C-alpha cells in the first residue's frame, strides 16, 4: 500500500524528476551545438530577416490602400482608361517576378548546393566511427558495429568527431531527430539511411522520433551524450562486456526470476541465457538515465513501478504490465537489474 502511494506520488512528480535527472539541453533547433545545426540556424535567421521585410512591404501596401481610400475626388474606376495601371504592372513585375527570382536563386544556391553538403553522412570509409540506430515501436536500439555493445535510447559519441549514423527500422517509419546536432532522417523499411552526427561541445542533447509511428509516438525520445574521447572509449568498452554475475542473494534470486519468467521472452542480457531481441537489450540497463525512451527516470523505484504497471506510464506500449507478480519477486528483479551497470 505504501508502495502504491509512493508510485502515485512518483507519477505526479515525473516531470520534476526528469528535470532533475539532468537535461543539459532542451531540443532547440536554434541553439545549435554543431556546425551543421549552426548553418541551418543561420540560414533560418537570414530567411526570417528577408521574410519580415517582404511581409512589411505587403502590410505597407495594405495600409497605404487604407489611407488612400479616404482621399478626396476619388471616383469609381470601372470604365474607360485605368489610371495607375502602368504603375501597377511595374510593381507586379518588379515585386512579383524580378525580386523573388533574385532572392530565391540566392537562397537556392546557398542552401541546396552548400549547406546541404555539410549535413550529409560522411562516407563509411572516411570515418572511424559508425553507429547503427534501429527504430522500434516505441524506442531506439543503438548498436556499435565492430563491438558487441548494444544499448537503447542513449547514444554516446566522442565529442568533435564526425560520426556516421546509420538508421534503420524494425517495424514502421520513424524519424531520427536531434535538432541541436543535425537535421532529421527517416527510417524506412528495407533501407538504411545515414546522416552525420557531430557535437561541438561535451553535453547531452535531446531528440525524439519525428514521424508519426503509432500510439506512443509521443514517448520516443533519445539522448545523445557527447563525451571526451577517452571517456567515450571507456564507456564503449564497458558496454561491450557481458553482464556481470549477480552479487548477493536478492539479486541472484532476481536473475533466476528473470531467466525463468516472462522477462527473458523479450529481453537480452548478454552473458546469460536470455537472448531474445524483441525489447531493449538490458545488459547494462542500470547505466542508463531513463526508462521507456525518456518517459521516466531510471531509479529503483521507477523501475519497480514500470515492471508492475508499464501501461500506466506509457499506455499501449508493447511491454505488458506485470501487476500479478508478487512484491518479493519484483524486488528481486529490481535488485538484479540495478546491478547491471
Amino acid at each position, binding site marked *: 500500500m505504501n508502495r502504491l502511494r509512493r508510485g502515485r506520488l512518483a507519477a505526479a512528480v515525473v516531470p520534476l524528476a526528469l528535470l532533475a535527472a539532468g537535461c543539459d539541453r532542451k531540443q532547440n533547433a536554434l541553439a545549435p551545438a554543431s556546425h551543421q545545426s549552426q548553418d541551418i540556424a543561420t540560414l533560418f535567421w537570414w*530567411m526570417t530577416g528577408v521574410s519580415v521585410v517582404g511581409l512589411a512591404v505587403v502590410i505597407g501596401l495594405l495600409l497605404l490602400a487604407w489611407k488612400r481610400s479616404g482621399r478626396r475626388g476619388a471616383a469609381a474606376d470601372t470604365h474607360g482608361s485605368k489610371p*495607375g495601371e502602368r504603375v501597377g504592372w511595374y510593381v507586379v513585375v518588379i515585386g512579383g517576378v524580378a525580386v523573388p527570382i533574385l532572392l530565391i536563386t540566392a537562397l537556392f544556391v546557398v542552401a541546396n548546393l552548400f549547406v546541404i553538403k555539410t549535413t550529409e553522412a560522411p562516407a563509411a570509409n572516411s570515418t572511424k566511427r559508425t553507429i547503427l540506430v534501429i527504430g522500434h515501436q516505441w524506442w531506439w536500439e543503438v548498436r556499435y558495429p565492430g563491438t558487441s555493445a548494444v544499448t537503447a535510447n542513449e547514444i554516446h559519441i566522442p565529442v568533435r568527431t564526425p560520426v556516421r549514423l546509420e538508421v534503420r527500422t524494425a517495424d514502421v*517509419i520513424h524519424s531520427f531527430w536531434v535538432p541541436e546536432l543535425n537535421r532529421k532522417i527517416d527510417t524506412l523499411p528495407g533501407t538504411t539511411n545515414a546522416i552525420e552526427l557531430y557535437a561541438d561541445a561535451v553535453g547531452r542533447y535531446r531528440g525524439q522520433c519525428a514521424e508519426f509511428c503509432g500510439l506512443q509516438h509521443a514517448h520516443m525520445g533519445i539522448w545523445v551524450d557527447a563525451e571526451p574521447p577517452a571517456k567515450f572509449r571507456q564507456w564503449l568498452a564497458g558496454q561491450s562486456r557481458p553482464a556481470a554475475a549477480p552479487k548477493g542473494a536478492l539479486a541472484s534470486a532476481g536473475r533466476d526470476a528473470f531467466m525463468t519468467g516472462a522477462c527473458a521472452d523479450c529481453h537480452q542480457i548478454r552473458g546469460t541465457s536470455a537472448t531474445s531481441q524483441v525489447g531493449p537489450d538490458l545488459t547494462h540497463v542500470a547505466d542508463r538515465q531513463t526508462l521507456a525512451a525518456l518517459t521516466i527516470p531510471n531509479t529503483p523505484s521507477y523501475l519497480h513501478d514500470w515492471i508492475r504497471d508499464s501501461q500506466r506510464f506509457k499506455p499501449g506500449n508493447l511491454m505488458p504490465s506485470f501487476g500479478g507478480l508478487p512484491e518479493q519477486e519484483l524486488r528481486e528483479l529490481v535488485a538484479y537489474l540495478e546491478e547491471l551497470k
Partner: protein
Amino acid sequence: MAIATPPTPAAARRMDRLEVMWQSRPGVLGWLTTTDHKRIGLLYFWTTLVLFGAGGIEAMVMRTQLIQPNNDLVSPGTYDELFTLHGLTMIFFFIIPMTTGAFGNYLIPLMIGARDMAFPRMNALSYWIFLGSAIFLYTSLALGMAPNAGWFDYVPLASKQYTPGHNIDFYALAIIFNSIASTLTAAQFIVTILKSRAPGMSFNRMPLFCFAFLAASFGLLFALPPLSADAIFLFLDRNVGTHFFDPSHGGAALLWQHLFWIFGHPEVYILIVPAFGIATSIIPAFTQRRLVAFPLVAIAELLVVFIGFGVWAHHMFATGMSTTALVFFAGATSMVVIPSTIQVFAWCMSFVLGVARFKTPLLFIAGFIFMFVAGGLTGIMFIAIPFDQQVTDTYFIIAHFHYIIFGAAVFPIFGGMYYWFPKVTGKLYFERPGQISFWLLFVGTNLLFFPMHIVGLLGMTRRIYTYPSNLGWTSYNVIETIGGYITLVGILVLFGNLVWSYLRGLPAGPDPWHGPTLEWTTSSPPPEYDFAVIPRVTSAYPNWDVEDREEDRRKLAGGVLVLDEGHEQVEVTPVDGWLSRVVEMPHDSPWPVLLALCLSLVFVMLLLQHFAIAGLMGILCLLTLLGWHSKEPEAA
C-alpha cells in the same frame, strides 16, 4: 440594371413561362431530385458546414488536450483518431466541397450567364456521392474505428500488421468514394466553364473566379487518380494479400508516399486557388476598380496549379532520397513562388489604386493576403532543403500550412460568405458584427498558429498526444489553445450574424455592392432560371457595362435569346465564346440519388469484405444507369 422587373408585358409572359419550365418539385422530393445548380450548391453548403463543425470540434479537443503537459483528457488512441479525422475532414470534406461544391456550383453558372451546369444530373450525383462518403467516414467514428494513422496515412504503419482493425479500411474506401464525387465535380466545372458561357464571353473576358475554378478542376482531375490508385493498393494490401508496399516481398513503402504526394501537393493549390478566385471577385467590387494586371493574374492562377504537379517530393525531403532528386524538387518548388507573388502584388496594387471600402468581405481578403504572405514566406523557407529537413514533421510545418489553409483558403471562404450572402438570401448582413467576427478570427488564428512556429523550432514534433513539461513548450501551447477558443468565438459570431441577418436583414436588392460580374445583374435570390435572357458580354466586368444591360432588357422585350420555348441553354465555342447552338437541358430526376445510394452499398459491402455482394450492388448501380438513360416521358 438588373432585370428584376420585366420591362414589358410580353417580357413578363416570357418570364412566367421560364418560371414554369425551370421549376423544381415542391418539398423534400424537390430537394432529392433537384438538378438546379443553386439548390445543389446550398446542399453542399449545409453539408460541408456540418462537417466543418465536426472538424472544428476535433481540433478544439486536441488543443484542449495540449493545453498542459502530460494531460490526459483523451487517450493516445483517441488523439490519433482526432488528428486523422481533423485532417481528412477539413481537406476532403470541408474546403474542397465548400469551394467547388458550394461556391462553384452556386456561382459559376451565375458568373458566366448560364442557366445551369453543363451536366445537371451528374452534378446532383456528385453531391449525393459526396454525402454518402461523408456519412461513410463518420460512421467509423460512431463505431470507434476511425482512421488513426494520420491523414497521409503512411505505410507500413497503416498496413494490416500494425493497424489490424477496420480503421484504415474506412480510410481507404472513404478516400476512393470521395474522389468519385470530386472527379465528377471537376469534369463538370471544366465542361461548364468551357462550353456554357454567355456568347461574347471569350477567354479574356472570363471572370478570374472562373479561371481559378478551371485551374482547380483540372488539378483535381489529374491529381485524384494517383490518390485513388494509392488507396486501392492499400485496400488490396490489407485485404487481398498483395504486396505493393511491402519491401520484404518486392514492394516499396516509399511508393505510398510518392503516389500520395503526387496528389497531395497539387491538392494544396486546389484548396487555395478557388480562394484566390473568391479574392479576385471581392477586390474589384470593393475597390470599384478593375483588377491590376488581369492577364498576368489569370495566367498565374493556371500556372500555380500546373507547376504544383512538379513539386510533390518536397514533402519527402527527410526520407533519404538522393540529393539530386531533392535539388530537382526544390527547384520546382522555387518556381511555384513566382505565380503566387505576381498575384499578391496584383491584389495589393488593386487595393492601392482603387478606392478600397473596408467592409467585412474586403477585411477578410486583406486578412487573407496577410496570412497567405506569412504562410507563403515560411513556405519559401522549405526550398532550403536542410532547413526543411530540420523543421519538417514539427509544429513549424503545422504553423505554415495552417496559415495557408486556414488563413489563405478559409478566410476568403468566410469573406465570400459575406460577399454573396445578399445574392443568395436577398438580405443584407449586419456590418458591425461582421467586422467584429473578422477581428476575432484574425486575432484568434494568429494567436493560435503563430506560436506554433516557435514551439516547432524548440523541437515540438507533430502528432504527439502529450509532451513533457521541461522543454519550454507549455506557455506556447497555452497561448495557442486560447487563440483556438478566440477563433471558435469568431466563427460563432460569424454564423450567428449570418443567421440573424437572414431573419432580420434589410432587403438587399439585386446589386448591393455594384459588383462587376454577371451574378449581380439578376435578382437576389436569383430565379430558378438564373437569367431571364442570356446576357450580352463585351468585357470582363459585364455588370459595369451599362449599355449591355440595357441591351439585355431590349432583348427580353423582343424575345431574343430568352429561350422560353423549352428547358434550354446556349453552348459556345470554348475559346472565343461564339454561340454554337442551343441545347436541351435535362429535367429533375430521382436517378442520381438512387445511383449514389447503390454506390454507398457497394462501399459498405467492400468494407465488410463481402466482395460478391459488393459486385451485385455494382450491378444494381449499372441498372440505375439504365434508368437514368431511358427516354423520359415528354415533360408536362
